[in-house]
């Protein structure tokens, strides 16, 4: 593969309709999570109706839950928990994983080997199992959940960044940079990172889906966000008995979660071929 100054290509923004829809869904939930306090109708903990598992109505848009609380309001705030915790966890995992991955690729040798081996340990523990172990040890609180997500997902970020960075590291322009006397850190940040940032962002998107599914699964088991607050997984858990009444309390949070996860997955599946090729 030869690397020369790439001719300036016309960037054609060809957006497929499905990608546009997905982007809209992702933006919708992001906005909902950010402005949740402005959108709720009732405080999340308040029992506002005597009607348990009440149907959808003008007053309670999505019905009421097993304690007669407004599901619409709990769903909106749930979005904030699910997306907020997952996002903070993702950022921490990405910071640690990407930094270590770049370091491993730039320095190489023994440092790379030891770091890769050590981090591979975590890959030997299935995700949800590791989450259970961490929650068992630390109890369930939001900082512990963020810690668990960071620990579980940084090894993947590390491995992905490292493998991308190692490929770039072998290219001519890196040798050129090293030959003109640039240090490891300069090479990492100014030469390697800009060339792999696209695939890394796409990879982080896929990881975000895994994070929200894991977090909801944990809450569904009763080990995530604790009552009276609830994220989407917790909402499904606490209203499980509503299944027999066909209550929207069980279905709506599931659908919210599925819509967000599906939108992100499809969005990344419809990225330009150039980035998708690097993802695989």
């Amino acid at each position, binding site marked *: 593969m030869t690397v020369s100054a790439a001719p300036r290509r016309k960037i054609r923004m060809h957006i497929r309709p499905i990608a546009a829809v997905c982007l809209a869904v992702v933006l919708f939930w992001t906005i909902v999570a950010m402005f949740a306090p402005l959108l709720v109708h009732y405080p999340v903990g308040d029992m506002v109706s005597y009607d348990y598992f009440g149907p959808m109505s003008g007053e309670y848009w999505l019905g009421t839950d097993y304690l007669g609380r407004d599901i619409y309001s709990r769903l909106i705030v749930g979005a904030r928990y699910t997306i907020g915790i997952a996002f903070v966890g993702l950022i921490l995992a990405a910071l640690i994983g990407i930094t270590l991955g770049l370091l491993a690729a730039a320095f190489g040798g023994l440092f790379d080997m030891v770091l890769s081996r050590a981090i591979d340990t975590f890959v030997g523990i299935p995700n949800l199992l590791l989450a259970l172990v961490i929650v068992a040890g630390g109890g369930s609180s939001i900082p512990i959940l963020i810690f668990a997500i960071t620990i579980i997902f940084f090894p993947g970020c590390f491995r992905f960044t490292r493998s991308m960075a190692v490929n770039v590291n072998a290219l001519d322009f890196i040798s050129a940079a090293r030959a003109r006397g640039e240090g490891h850190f300069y090479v990492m940040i100014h030469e390697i990172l800009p060339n792999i940032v696209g695939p890394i962002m796409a990879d982080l998107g896929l990881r975000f889906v895994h994070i929200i599914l894991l977090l909801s*699964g944990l809450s569904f088991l009763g080990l995530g966000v604790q009552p009276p607050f609830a994220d989407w*997984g917790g909402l499904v858990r606490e209203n499980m008995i509503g299944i027999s009444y*066909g209550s929207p309390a069980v279905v709506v949070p599931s659908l919210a979660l*599925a819509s967000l996860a599906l939108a992100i997955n499809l969005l990344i599946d419809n990225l330009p071929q150039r980035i998708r090729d690097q993802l695989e």
Partner: protein
Amino acid sequence: MNKRILEMIGGRLAVAVLSLFLVSLAVFFITELLPGDTAQELLGQAVTTEAAAQLRETLGLDRPAILRYFEWIFGLLTGDLGYSHVSDRPVANLVAERLPNSLTLAAITMAITIPLALGLGIVAAIWRGSIFDRAISSAAIMLVSFPEFMIATLLVMWLSVYMQWLPALSFIPATADFRTIVLAFIMPVSVLVFGSCSQMIRLSRAAIADAMATPYVEMAVLKGASRGRMVLRHALPNSVAPIVNSVALSMSGLLGGVIIVETVFNYPGLAKLMVDGVSTRDMPLIQTCSMIFCGFYLVLITAADIIAILSNPRLR
């Protein structure tokens, strides 16, 4: 089999043993060193500083963690799985009751998922770009996006509540006849198959697609081989390694699924036991269950790697 292959397999086994050791360190110290204490948890509301200290001494929790780690790991190796203080029974008894149930569930799931997912992945690769391929790929991407508990609750709503065809819980009485047992298994197994097949379909399709891009497949095309022959005779044998790996890796997802499914359907398996253990902070139980799960997982990953080594024609 030549010496090179044996060396590679030996190396892989050594790595597996080392990984298991590191995993045991991680499991033990994560459960031990984070704030929180079994003694306080056991005493609950009645906790006083003296009582907690007394109980800690009785349970041996006052000794250094590193010492207790070695006792624990030595116990595991000699078949002593520890003692559950919460349920006041040896962990070995608890595990022995539950493990066969979980293995049954996982075995049935794998027996369905593996042929189904690989079949669909291969067929999608044969007819790449066709409507069939796109339908399978879209279905796979949807299934990856849906949490298991959602698939489970929707199935329960549909099949148990509205149709009343299947039981909502998978508690199987000892006197149950064959039909009852089959009915109880349908929903949990379906959820697990849905949850674990999508990744396998995508990876096996991608592996075949990769092999299709190689020069020797092009050669087969030039010789006039049919599309099916090209895939099955030329591409597939060379994709065994990535496909077996994808199967092993999806076991991580399967375990996650088993944890959720056993909880939803109240199925008396090991994963449910462990989730209950986490709620009651029954550390010896959690540690042992984790090691059993990680042990199985590592055995599967290692087996996959060994199959990949054996299947590599260049090493034969």
